[in-house]
């Protein structure tokens, strides 16, 4: 198989397979969660839970001040990574073209030097995140394969993408093929790893925000 064949394969059939597994996996995970249902709450609410739930979906993005003071590395590196990653993923013009092909609609992107910078930021933050995970006693204690695998799955598309962008290491078609392959790996394993938090965190935040909100506590 030539590099061009490899690229065609990752762009074509393999991408379709990855996409199907990704979507089916997401559906399975969400159904798994939602079918469990929740019991009706008979206690008299102090205020409606719905609005508080929605609020918490967003408000938890910002840390409580004490947490920021006690664990600045975790908070800041986490933040920088998420922003850098999302900017690279969602605002890079070739990515938007890919989304357009799959979703049928697109959006404006950012100039490439900004994307380049965002990608580097994300990678640097990820290295900090990893070192932090290995050094912080609590994180090291909690972490296992299920935590390191998602790290790798996320880091590979970033580094390969950056190499493609700068035409480094391998010829363009081969490197791009590898980049797409790493993304496909991410998509396939996404629903079955902690990467799921990307979506379920909003559900979790909603549940907690609503439960606290009924009691009149902003969370």
């Amino acid at each position, binding site marked *: 198989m030539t590099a061009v064949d490899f690229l065609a394969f990752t762009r074509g059939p393999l991408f379709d397979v990855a996409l199907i597994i990704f979507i089916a996996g997401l559906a*399975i*995970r969400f159904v*798994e*969660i*939602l*079918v*469990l*249902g*929740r*019991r009706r*709450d*008979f*206690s*008299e609410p*102090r205020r409606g839970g719905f609005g508080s739930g929605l609020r*918490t*979906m967003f408000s*938890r*993005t910002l*840390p*409580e001040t*004490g*947490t920021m003071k*006690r*664990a600045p590395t*975790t*908070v800041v590196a*986490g933040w920088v990574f998420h922003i850098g990653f999302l900017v690279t993923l969602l605002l890079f013009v070739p990515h938007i073209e890919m989304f357009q092909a799959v979703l049928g609609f697109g959006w404006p992107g950012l100039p490439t030097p900004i994307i380049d910078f965002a990608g580097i930021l994300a990678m640097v933050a990820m290295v900090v995140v990893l070192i932090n*995970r290995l050094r*912080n*006693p*609590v*994180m*090291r*204690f*909690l*972490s296992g394969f299920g*935590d390191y695998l998602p790290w790798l799955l996320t880091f590979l598309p970033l580094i390969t993408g950056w190499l493609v962008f700068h035409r480094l290491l391998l010829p363009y078609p081969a490197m791009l093929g590898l980049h797409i392959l790493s993304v496909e790996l991410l998509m396939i394993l996404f629903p*079955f790893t*902690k990467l*799921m*938090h990307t979506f*379920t*965190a*909003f*559900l*979790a*935040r*909603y*549940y*907690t*925000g609503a*439960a*606290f909100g009924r*009691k*009149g*506590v*902003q*969370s």
Partner: protein
Amino acid sequence: MSANVERAVNAFKEQIDASTAAFFSSCVHCGLCAEACLFYLETGDPKYTPIHKLEPLRRVWWSSYTLFGRLASLIGLAPKVTDDLLKDWKELVYDSCSMCGRCSMVCPVGNDITGMIRKEREGMIAAGHAPDGLKGASSRAIKIGSPMGVTLKAVKAQIGHLEADTGMTIPVNVEGAEYLVLMSSMEIMNYPEYLEAIARIFEAAGASWTIASDAFEATNSGIQIGASDIARELVMRIVAAAERLKVKTVISPECGHAYTALRWEGPNLIGRPFPFKARHILEVLDEFRADGRLQTEGFEEDRLTFHDPCQIVRRGGVIDEPRRLIDMVAKDFVEMDDNGRYNWCCGAGGGVSAIEEAHDLKLTAFLKKKKQLDAVKPEKLMTACANCRIQLEEGMEETGMDIPVIGLTETLAEHLKTPETAKG
């Protein structure tokens, strides 16, 4: 699987719902919940990380309710819940968690870790792995009517003293009274000031109230140990008395978990809404204040701070009421650094105070509060929970601090304008 473990697993399954599944699915092991937990912060031991306390529950969720987990357990690869695991987790689930709810406020993915620990306790007790202190308290609550073994006789004796001392009549079993007043064992045994304060404030407010001879106890060991059946029976006693006496509002006393038990868990335990209102005493006093029925005179001159009882404030939503009431009687009120919904627990909630083995740990956990107090240097420490109060007093004694701890309700009563002066 031993019968014990099977009971635990079934209880876990009974408890796991969509929110539990969303929470476990979302945890990224960032460790930030540890930074919110006084048991971790004061010991520095990572095993006290809140989410780690949930490992048994997590295993059941993963192996029973996820595709990969189910496949893994089919081929025997899923980590199992064993009797040894549950035994090992007893300390984590009970001794080192006061159910304070602080971890649930900071988890970036929004996990209500505290709520899950409450659920996990159902399985722990189902397998018999609950601390003896809590088991004893629960059985005394069921058999005698109070976790501390306080009998109706003791309550009557207290009422007798009170009536003799003050000349007031304490209403018992009065049908049609507006309010049913509950007490905690601690108040009956250690802080009789509470009942006197209620009698005086309610008389001044012109509110009709009563105590029920068959439901004077507000505390609920059932929710602390995590046994819904016990919790239900204890709540049902209150509901039955309230319905029999046709009261409009049942008042939970200056106790944290009693409020959670009655106000938020109660209707769900009995499976229907209450036909009466369940309120914390501070909420009722704040209503009196707003209606002009609670009037005070004079101020506490000392520098005074307020310790928020977790179950009343963060897990209960009674946040502004105590502050409005304190303003009525305090000139020099200072807030501690983290207060209100971000307060730090006293270290002995959630049943911890009843666990003998947790004695040293709860005093270590108190050091968090000590640091807060050292920072504001109050001359008096006010709170609104008898359980917090005992822990604060014990913690301060152990660490050589000397700040008197006072209850909010009784302080209001001390400054009460008598009906005569109020009219005039």
